[in-house]
Structures are given as C-alpha cells and as structure tokens.
C-alpha cells in the first residue's frame, strides 16, 4: 500500500480516494507550509479539497490553480498532484519557490470535478461533465467550463442537456463552479487564476466568449509566450499561445473569462500534453514528463505575478 508521499507513485493514475489520501500525506509531511481546506461539496456530496501553500501572513495576495474540471483529462489531476508535492518539497531548496511563498499564498484544487472523475473511473472513461441531474431530461451533467458567469449561454456552448458542452440551466448552477467562485470572492485578494486542462498543448488567456481583445492582451501574451518557451525547453513539447477564441474556438461560460472579468488580471488556461493520438488516455509513462514540463511553465507565470503586483 502507498503509505506516504515519499513512496507514492506519481507516475500512475489513481482513483479519487488515493489522490485524497495522498493530499493528506503531503499535508502531514509538510505541515509548516501546506494545509488542506474544504471549499464545498460536489453534487454527489464529495468534498472539494484545496491545498493551501503558505508561509504565513494574513490574506496575502494569492495564486489560484484548479485542475481536472473536465473529468476525463486524467493527466491533469495527476499533474496537479505531482505539482503539489513539488512545491512542498522544493520549498527551502528552490529560491524561486521560496521567494514566491514568502510573498504570496498558493491554492491548488487538485480535482475540480470529483463526481465526474469517479464516474470516469467506474462507468464511462470518456466522461467530461459534472453529474448533476437536469429536470425534464434523461441526460446527466453540465460542462463545468461552460457554466461560469462570462458570456453565459453564448456561442460555443450548447443548450442541449445531452451535449458534452451543455452550459447548464444558469450561470454557476453547478456547485463545483459556485464553490470556487464563492471561495475566490470571499478571499478577495487572488491575483492569478490558472485552470489546467489537457488536450492539444495550448496556453491561453481570455477571452473565449468573444473574440474581442482584452485590455491586457500584450502583457498576457508576453507572459504566456515566456511560460510556453520555458515549458518547451525541457522536452521540446510545442505549445500554441493566444486568446481562447483564436487559438481554439469561441467558447462561452469559461472559468478564466470569469476570473479576468472579476478583476484577476493574470488568468490563464493550460491544455497539457496530448497530441490526440491517445485521446485522453495519455499513457502513464508520460505523466511525470508532462508534470515536469508544466512546472517550468507554471513557475514562469508565478515569477511574473510575484514581480508585478497590482
């Protein structure tokens, strides 16, 4: 049995219980800088746990990271867990992590859609949505990345409850989304919002619900390109960079559009390594390389956020 973060196999896919257990192990091993918060419960009453990395201080400026809002993108949750361990174990050894955590707090939601994640392990490997029931429809679930209050119900989201991109009955209708929104609002000092997905290697910034440019486009483009270059430097993985609308497609109700409109300038979405040849079934031997290269990109963004307070 995997009993502690030193013996845990980060290069494998794990069920939710094992991930949650490992989060507890990390907290137990690094109690000075890591703690666990529960920010809510999923539709099926599973806890939504956030790891908080902090060296103290009161309501410091913070960075938010969530992973796995689309359940089937398993390398995302696996990368987030590896990242948690990396931050905790590098503190006191990596000057960049020290400097970051001496200035800011970091919140990491490792499994943003636990119901969907469990369903993708037990019933349908290709499940992407939440598991909420829609009155009057036989179909289950809402695409939680079409459910945020940013151009809700607009282009690039479906009003059909059976669609994989169903936007839901109203903005924030999904408790998984509402819990994050409530947490960010109650915190009040979040300066960066990073959402991690995995398909086709992209690093994006707002907007998705409209193809209009954001006010901070030049800066965010620059930050994203620097981060993508840092990521590429490790294994040569090529990333495309730009606004969601032009890099992939117009999609409304997305998380980073909401966060940007809420006032969090440094809002980014990663789509991690996956050429599509394996679909979402990225072989386990690519988990750690994916996590390692993503860490390079994340650190680059962290450093910019730390050095450019606003």
């Amino acid at each position, binding site marked *: 049995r995997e009993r502690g973060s030193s013996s845990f196999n980060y290069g494998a896919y794990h069920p939710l219980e094992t991930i949650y257990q490992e989060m507890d192990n990390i907290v137990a091993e690094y109690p000075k800088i890591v703690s666990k918060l529960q920010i809510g419960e999923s539709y099926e009453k599973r806890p939504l746990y956030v790891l908080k990395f902090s060296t103290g201080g009161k309501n410091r400026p913070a960075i938010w990271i969530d992973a796995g809002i689309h359940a089937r993108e398993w390398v995302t949750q696996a990368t987030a867990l590896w990242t948690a361990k990396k931050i905790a174990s590098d503190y006191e050894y990596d000057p960049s992590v020290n400097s970051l955590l001496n200035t800011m707090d970091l919140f990491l939601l490792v499994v943003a859609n636990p119901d969907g994640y469990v369903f993708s392990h*037990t019933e349908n490997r*290709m499940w992407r949505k939440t598991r909420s029931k829609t009155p009057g429809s036989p179909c289950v679930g809402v695409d939680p990345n079409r459910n945020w209050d940013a151009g809700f119900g607009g282009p690039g989201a479906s009003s059909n409850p059976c669609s994989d*991109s169903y936007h839901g009955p109203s903005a924030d209708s999904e408790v998984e989304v509402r819990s994050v929104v409530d947490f960010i609002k109650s915190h009040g000092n979040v300066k960066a919002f990073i959402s991690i997905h995995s398909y086709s290697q992209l690093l994006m910034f707002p907007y998705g619900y409209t193809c209009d440019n954001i006010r901070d486009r030049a800066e965010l483009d620059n930050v994203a390109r620097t981060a993508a270059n840092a990521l590429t430097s490790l294994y040569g993985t090529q990333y495309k960079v730009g606004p969601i609308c032009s890099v992939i*497609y117009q*999609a409304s109700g997305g998380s980073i559009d909401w966060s940007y409109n809420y006032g969090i300038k440094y809002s980014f979405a990663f789509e991690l390594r996956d050429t599509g040849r394996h*679909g979402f079934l990225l072989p386990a031997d690519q988990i750690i390389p994916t996590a390692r290269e993503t860490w390079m990109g994340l650190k680059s963004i962290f450093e910019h956020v730390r050095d450019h307070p606003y």
Partner: protein
Amino acid sequence: LENFAGDQVLRVEPCNEEQVRLLKELRALEPLQLDFWRFPSYPNEPADVQVPFACLQDVKVFLESRGIKYCVMIEDIQAAVDEERREMYLNQR
C-alpha cells in the same frame, strides 16, 4: 460500464468556412451521439470527434460526400481503454 468497442476518433480538417459550418451542423445532430474532443472552429484548424461504431458509416459518408478531409486518429477506443486498464492493474500490483 460503457463499451467503446469499434468507436473511432476522426481528425477532421475543414478547409473553408462552409466546411466549418457543416461540421457544426453535424455536431448538432443529437442521434449520432458524437463527442467532439476538439470543436470545429476555423478553416484549417482540425476538429477531433469520437464517433460511435454504429454511426461510423453515416459520419464518413457525410464527410466524404462534402469533400471534407479526415483521417482516423484512434482506430478503436476500447482497445485504448483496455490497455490503460491493464497498465493500471499492473501498477496497482
């Protein structure tokens, strides 16, 4: 447990706005139960779509009759799922 035996993932490459529009129409056809992994967006940007085995012929005919380029990216999703499950089982052991 859902079985994906024979389901394929097609990478579709629309070359103009009209073909993008057709793909969006295809996406809206609920009975086909298509799962777009990457949505149709702009000309020359690929879209990836998981097609259930039962609809493969219909979808391929639709694409070919309209001159929309595609290739089979994943031959059999169930085979990939089975391989993943085997790996996880070995790992747990």
